[in-house]
């Protein structure tokens, strides 16, 4: 079975031969023994005699894989549908609208941005209170504030868009 595996923008072609688990990633061969440890998400892999523990969770149609404390969001496609996706994918427009999302639930205690104002990379846009700390959310790049969607005193959820840059 062949899989096209995407992790953080990098693609791997993985071929799994089921009789012997011998997989190749981008042409490189590996001998693998993989077992479920706890019947849930914990697996033990032995790859060319080197053991690794891996947590594999299904998530949003893909997988979230954690190995040695590093977590990866993994998408798996069979090569045909992958080629299809490649062709229909919208090209990323540099300088497009960038939403600034709340990285955690909290209370907005300050908004240092107004629509139309130019901001520098690193400049504080919103201050969020959570877990007894004030957390500064800064601009990830230079830009102009398009829309401010959060107000001081508002409780926001993780992932909620606080403002957008253009």
């Amino acid at each position, binding site marked *: *079975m062949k*899989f096209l*595996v995407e*992790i*953080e923008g990098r693609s*791997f072609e993985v071929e*799994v031969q089921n*009789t*012997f*688990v011998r*997989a190749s*990633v981008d042409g490189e061969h590996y*001998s*693998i*023994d*993989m*077992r*479920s*440890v*706890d*019947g*849930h*998400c*914990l*697996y033990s*892999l*032995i*790859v060319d*005699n080197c053991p690794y523990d*891996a*947590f*594999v969770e*299904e*998530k*949003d*149609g*893909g*997988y979230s*894989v*954690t*190995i*040695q*404390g*590093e977590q*990866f969001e*993994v998408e798996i*496609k069979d090569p045909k549908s992958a080629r299809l996706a490649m062709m229909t994918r919208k090209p990323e427009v540099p300088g497009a609208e960038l939403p600034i999302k709340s*990285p*955690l639930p*909290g209370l907005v*205690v*300050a908004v240092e941005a107004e629509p139309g104002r130019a901001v520098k990379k690193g400049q504080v846009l919103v*201050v969020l*209170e*959570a*877990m*007894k*700390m004030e*957390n500064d959310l800064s601009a990830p790049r230079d830009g102009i504030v398009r829309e401010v969607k959060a107000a001081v005193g508002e409780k926001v959820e*993780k992932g909620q868009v606080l403002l957008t840059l253009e």
Partner: protein
Amino acid sequence: MFRKILIANRGEVAIRILRACREMGIPSVAVYSEADRNALHVRLADQAFLLGPASPLESYLSIPRLMVVARLSGADAIHPGYGFLSENPNLARTCQEEGITFIGPTAEVLEKAGNKVEARRLMKEAGLLIIPGTLDGLAGEDEAFQVAGELGYPVLLKAAAGGGGKGMRIVHDASEMRPAIRTARNEAEMAFGDSTLYVEKLISRARHIEMQILADAQGNMVYLGERECSIQRRHQKLVEEAPSPVMGPEDRRTLGETVLRAARAIGYVGAGTFEFLRDQEGHFYFLEVNPRLQVEHPVTEMVTGIDIVKEQIRLAAGEPLRFKQEDIQVKGWAIECRLYAEDPENIFMPSPGTIWAMVEPSGPGVRVESSAFVGLSIPTYYDPLLSKVVVWAETREEAINRMRRALQEYYIMGVNTTAPFHRFVMEDAAFLSGDFDTGFIYREWGEKTHRRERIKVLAALAAALVASQKGLPSTGARLRLQAAQESGWKSHGRRAMLRAY
């Protein structure tokens, strides 16, 4: 000795204290807010009482509610841990009025130590060096600009009632002053109910070094050696060690004796810590007195063999110190890593979530002080400290190797933790050399090159193998429970191996 001790705290420190009580044969009473009903400190105590809602002001910071629990449970002593009410003179005073022993210094000492502005003045009188800056609380923003101008930027804004890095901000130039004052005041007000600030010169490339002491009511005092706590983010410590790589026995004696003189000057009784900044010339500038247990006390315990919490309890019960200065030896090396529920990849932002799988390390020389368990939803109301890994070994090098080993064995699934940062520190050249300062995280972690690429291939393999087992995944589905032994994969390695014989 006490009949029963009420532990006015939560999380790993409450567990640390109740374990000490249990080992001394003293029943312990836990208190909890509604957000902490399932917390480990509740489940491990001998008795547990609800204090109130999640908000600290209505639970862990409520002196009247604590007093009700003390009365209901029959506790005759209160251990405040660190944070919350641990440095609050009102609790100490209320305890005295109610005939309950407060396990900590007297209200008078807490008042002197608690007001950082006041403490700076007192310590200056007692002969310690203090960092140039305002000796009084700031009257207003104008004074801040003026003092900063005289000292020269960068300067540090600090809360007079401060502690744990709260209400503290570095101000690199005048343009940053106004917002820094605002957030520092807000944090200070929120954390301590007192928004008074003062200004200090920022010491560049400083190391944070502190000295632990124990003092009895009979006038005996000892120092237990220093801790090196320079690896900090937001002025909160992440990695501590004892001894410090820059302190020899001679430095230790000099600093220890200086500290004991200062402690005597303020009539200190109990366990306490004097914090210093050491500049590159080796001067020790007094920072503050922490009149309580410190998060990082275990590293001192590991190198001296002295259980600071048990000694604290004995001292509060009026017992004299059981050892003299010459009995105390610093042996080997200890390191502590604090695991916070924070995302180190995302400026150490708190990372809430629910732990669904977990293994903690153990074995020779490893001690874990943990409040984590499967099922824990990290409450967003409190400090996100989950656990501390502490190791001891004969040498610093061996201790670092051991910490590396322990961190490899540690996993917590469901929340981000600072573990990846700690794994990085234990491999970092500056840390290994011992030559680092409080700017460590900014310089080293900021420059980190990821080891993710190497592991990415493994992640691709693991995901593909799971997918090959079950067809392509459908959105949102969970893995079915499958018996561990009934793996469908056959092992090439196994067959190849068997053929080799």
